[in-house]
């Protein structure tokens, strides 16, 4: 029994798990409620990983597998960058890198009625919020916050969009992101990060956009300090 306990969650937390790894055994965790995040599946008493990544734990009882992908699985309340692919009747079909195209009703904008619905051409970049992710249905987006205000959502004009991984997007979205901090000290730019692995950057000078975009793309596999060094080097090279 003791040996079994050694495979308990605590020992595996912050460890790399691969699909099929049993990360939790519920049989010796009676009377406990746990919450499972992405990348974990319950099979009888065993909780096993279905994705490769780092097993993470947050108090009091939430577990998930932290990983980075190129595809995106829509989740409620995620802020994503989508590309308009087509429009039919009152809906826009938007590509959010998911398994299905997402649906954006033409009425899901602040202050829009049937009369003044927006028109976007194919290829427009939108910053939107995921509001429905029912299985068997296309996910639904909205360009308003919960109270119906525009709150920065909507089409993004100009600037440059590039694709990254979901992991990098999350890193950029965190409170202290070394790349953005380091870049922000020297350059002035606007950025929109979609958790689905798309990043949009805008600045007055195309030069700054290119620097920021490349710095972000290069930071994919670097640690915090490495990122800072990389950015410094890049900026030094530019200022020469």
């Amino acid at each position, binding site marked *: 029994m003791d040996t079994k306990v050694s495979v308990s969650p605590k020992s595996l937390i912050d460890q790399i798990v691969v699909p099929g790894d049993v990360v939790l055994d519920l049989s010796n965790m009676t009377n406990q409620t746990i919450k499972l995040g992405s990348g974990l599946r319950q099979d009888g008493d065993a909780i096993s990983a279905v994705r490769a990544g780092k097993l993470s734990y947050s108090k009091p009882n939430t577990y998930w597998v932290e990983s980075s992908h190129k595809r995106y699985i829509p989740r409620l309340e995620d802020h994503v960058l989508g*590309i308009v*692919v*087509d429009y039919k009747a009152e809906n826009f*079909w938007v*590509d959010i890198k998911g398994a*299905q*195209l997402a649906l954006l009703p033409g009425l899901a904008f602040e202050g829009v009625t049937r009369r003044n619905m927006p028109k976007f*051409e194919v*290829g*427009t*970049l939108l910053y939107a919020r995921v509001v429905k992710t029912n299985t068997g249905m296309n996910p639904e987006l909205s360009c308003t916050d919960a109270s119906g205000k525009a709150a920065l959502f909507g089409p*993004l*004009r*100009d*600037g*440059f*969009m*590039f694709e990254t991984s979901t992991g990098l997007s999350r890193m950029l979205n965190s409170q202290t992101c070394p790349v953005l901090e380091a870049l922000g000290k020297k350059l002035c730019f606007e950025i929109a990060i979609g958790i689905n692995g798309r990043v*949009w950057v805008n600045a007055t000078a*195309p*030069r700054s*956009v*290119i*620097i920021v*975009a*490349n710095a972000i793309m290069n930071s994919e596999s670097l640690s915090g300090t490495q990122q800072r060094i990389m950015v410094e080097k890049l900026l030094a090279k530019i200022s020469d």
Partner: protein
Amino acid sequence: MEGRLANMWRLTVNESKFVETALQSELRVDGRGLYDYRKLTIKFGKEYGSSEVQLGQTHVMGFVTAQLVQPYKDRPNEGSLSIFTEFSPMADPSFEPGRPGESAVELGRIIDRGLRESRAVDTESLCVLAGKMVWSVRIDLHILDNGGNLVDAANIAALAALMTFRRPDCTVGGENSQDVIIHSPEEREPLPLIIHHIPIAFTFGFFNKGNIVVMDPTYVEEAVMCGRMTVTVNANGDICAIQKPGEEGVNQSVILHCLRLASSRAAATTKIIREEVEAYNREKNLQKVKRHPTMAKSEVSGPMVVVKEGHKKSTADQEKAAERSREDVERLNLSSVELKGRKKQEAAASPANFKGGPSSWDPYTEAMDVDSLKASLASKGASPVTKSPIKKKMDGSENTQKDGESSMEDLTEDLGKDGELTLKDAVKPKKKRKTKAVKKV
């Protein structure tokens, strides 16, 4: 239809607009200048005539194979050269499986025109028996990743594969001297193709109604640009092929400007390809030299494998070795400790085994070119001196794992007794050995 939409790669309005505006101030999204080329790496496979080219994110593989066939009726004494392209759907979602699409056909034709119609490969030397048997050389180009500018990458892959290709030697013999005998590589050295010149393709992208020209466009740039031109040139300043398939019109002066740019670049790219091919050939030659001791002393086949591996890593040039050695420093320290411990053990346990050690070590598995081989042959056995200390260390460390006892000191000592024979065997070109044998008789 929805399914079709979901599988496509999409370009946003923002991207296409930005690419254009940035280009107006002579900036490209990946930070390159207008006429900068992406990083080019060429790798070769184990077999003759296979290459792997990486140009930025673009990844192309080339294979060359040859077969004896009946010649075409209108060219009875010329071999043939054909190019086949494979756009695998794994490289790009827009490539569809099945029959090659328009772009695949066009790519093949551009390379075909550059290589075949400019007579870069000597096809007459591929004739074995006029009107009966000629070699048909086939180049297969597989696109593994599409990061833009497939033509240039595929062209370099084709060239690199052709330049490292060896076809089996064959002679005409038999009773009526009409039979073709193919010699195995052990029997006779396989022959390289005769390549007259090296035509290199350069692709230009046109933006802003043909007013802005960029070299080596990336995937995003290809989606935005309004026109494209591929110029195939060689280092002598000849133009071997041009392909500007319609699209936006550009001024004559722009075209001539592109031609000049391309021919000024050709020499540099040719040099890269040549250097890589030479490095590969050198390595192959060394492997050949190594073959003899294996045959002579087949009982030490086990450790042989290890040496081969190690040798492969320590490729030719010294700079490369030096570079790698820095990375290896840590590993080296560890393994040398391990080595000492194991050495003591094994030496005590089995002295017989110890004796066999040096034969698995061959001074010429070390990276050295043929010229220096010859030179060291003249100064008999002085070879270890010519080695750089870094390489010594590396060799030691790599042999450690299975062949722990052969540390450097032992090797140099043993060289005088046991090693000398191996050395001669290993080095002597066939001819020399033969003449000596005759003398003895």
